[in-house]
């Protein structure tokens, strides 16, 4: 009984902390929708890089990565905005930029990552990957979605619009209950 009560005392604040984390990240993501300029996002990755992304050359398996390039002014402008957004949270978090790929509705790609190297979805090194159902939902409905699939992780996904009102990207505001200070130092 004593152990049960002790566990309860320990668990209740933890659950509360997780709720707080989700709430904070949701607020970050909500503001991101307003602050992140979708037109600039669309200028980040060059058409040439996108063209190479899906080319297959058995003799040159690294062609897509070798030809990946970005317009640095657009990249820097958005990255700085994302970093500022991450500072809204009272705990370490990243705000990553994700974008769909024209002509490949079943794929999604991360475009900007940040200093804590956190993401609930990015398999390390991928230029693009299969569409994440929750991301598809955000891109389709324009509503924010909270994802806690990986134990200890909280991501809030929110849409990014361009000047035409189209949903052209989304942000992943993400943190971890227990940060691993050595993961992805590679």
């Amino acid at each position: 009984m004593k152990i049960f009560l002790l566990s309860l005392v320990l668990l209740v604040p933890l659950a509360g902390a997780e709720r707080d984390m989700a709430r904070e990240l949701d607020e970050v993501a909500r503001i991101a929708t307003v602050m992140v300029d979708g037109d600039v996002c669309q200028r980040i990755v060059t058409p040439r890089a996108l063209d190479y992304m899906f080319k297959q050359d058995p003799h040159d398996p690294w062609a897509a990565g070798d030809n990946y390039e970005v317009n640095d002014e657009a990249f820097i402008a958005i990255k700085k905005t994302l970093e500022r957004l991450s500072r809204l949270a009272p705990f370490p978090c990243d705000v990553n930029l994700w974008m769909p790929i024209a002509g490949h509705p079943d794929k999604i790609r991360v475009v900007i990552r940040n200093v804590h190297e956190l993401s609930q979805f990015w398999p390390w090194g991928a230029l693009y990957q299969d569409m994440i159902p929750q991301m598809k939902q955000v891109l389709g409905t324009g509503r924010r979605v909270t994802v806690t699939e990986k134990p200890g992780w909280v991501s809030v996904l929110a849409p990014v619009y361009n000047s035409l009102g189209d949903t052209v990207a989304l942000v992943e505001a993400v943190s971890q209950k227990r940060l691993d200070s050595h993961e992805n130092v590679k």
Partner: protein
Amino acid sequence: MNMSTRARASTVVVAFTAALFPALAANGTAELQATEEYRRPDPFGGIVAADHGDLSSFWRALSIEGARGAYVSFHLVAKVPTPGPYALTLRFEGDAGNLQLDLFREWFHFTDSDKQYYPDALIPVALPYRSHLPEPDNRIAQQTAQAFWVDLWIPPDARPGAYRARAVLEAGGTSSVLPIELQVLPAIVPDEDVMLMDHNSYGTSWIADDYPNVSRKLGEAFFQSDEFFRLIHAYHRIFYENHGIFHQLGYGHAGKVGPEFAPALEGSGRRRHIANWNLYDRHYGPLFDGSAFAQSRRGSRPIPFVYLPVNPEWPASFINWGEPGYEAEFANVLSEMERHFREKGWTRTHFELFFNHKKRYMGFPWDGDEVRFPRDNKYFLEYGRLLKKALPADTPVQFVFRADVSWDMEHQFKELGGVVNMWIAARDVLSWLPGMPQKLRDRGDVIWYYSGPPVVTEPASTITQFALQGWIWSAGGFVHWLTVDPGKDPWFHFNGGGTALVYPGERFGIEGPIASVRLKIQRNAVQELTLLASFQKRIPVAELKSEAARLYNHTSLAEWYNPRPALADQPTYDWSGTALDEATKPAMSHLEKIDPAGWSRVREYILRLAAEEK
């Protein structure tokens, strides 16, 4: 192990003897034999196929020679056809002076790619060594032979002359003796390696994975524990002892820095400063003052090179990039680091400002590593300006600006001259720039080149090509891009070791890394090459290189280079990997299949010259 003319003659005799009585061991009698280091034994009494051996590869007596300040090595093979216990002893006879010997049991790795066994990991064992065949932990049901790697250490002050040793195998009520005659030459291998062999790695999370006993015991405290830092220092030690150095990159592609790789920071903008050196100094202090190597046979000395944790997100936050705050944060912290290093007297290590990120990993908008798009070079110029601003002009601390270069190197050597002064160049493109390494060294730059470890399924001698090629090219060093990742199960389902030259020793009760056959072969080649290079006092270096190339793979020096291809005049971002491979084929074709005896011939030449030394 050298086969001098005299020694070769005795080898012919013993090989002939072996050929006359090949059935002895098969009849059930245990026998102790030896092979040269490039003929790796298999667990069934033969030589691994890649090393092209046969019965004549096994010797029943050894006559070997070596220079002072160097190791001489060979494989001992205990052939025990009938399962059961055995014992092995190895000792000098008579006055051994200050010579020392080390014995390692060779682990036979089952390699998934070709379903064969290869010896590579070297487990230090005490003498006498007693065990059973089949070796219980290696789990090879039909094993009839156990291989051991023998290192004979000849200190620089050893007495030249003849020494004798004797190895004895006892099994099944019989004993087999292998006599060893070692001739120590007066020549001394110089202290400084002619090629600095670098062994690279990334982060430290792999240490927790490779040493589960200690990391689980300590839990979250592991990464700040004395045990953790002892392990890091043990990796530096094993590479240093084997004539190499060790690099650990301490940050990720989006700028995350491992806490033990950088001092802790506080504040922002003009108030950003270093708050705490604790972990950094525990990590690096013994490496920068050399005390981590106090027990080494090579003597203690500071590590010559180290990565700084600097990246676009450290010490300045990228949020301020291009603004005065970025410059302030960068200059404040770098100048504090310079002061700390100077006050500690850490002035013999080169501190490398190095950018490893690639834009394909989405952290930053330019490639720090292997620039392909020339417009990225402007960032190097800017960081060069920031570094210059941060450091006193007369600092005794050696900061260098390092760039790892491939496609754009020819252009970068010019555009970034005077800013970048340490170059790690891709082997392929450098192959069509003969004379460039010497030019760079003449202007005071460091120039190394890079590739990766050969897998165990290639001939054992393959690894000797890197030191030789670097020396022929006049590069000062070579980088194996990853050397501490032996894969998920190196013991029973090995991936070949293309990213490993050491193994975690925890499985064998050793809290630290253990070496590999490939690392030892590389070490021996480096020490011998260093001796060869020292002869340029009396023999033109071009002649030394030319003869070494001829003996190694029957090539001329010109064949170690490629003609500059037409694509070199095209924009680098238009080069295809396929075209690059084609352009480098001619020179690479001579290095694809190294004759197992290739380095033996070079060594014989070196020791012949050494014997002529006054």
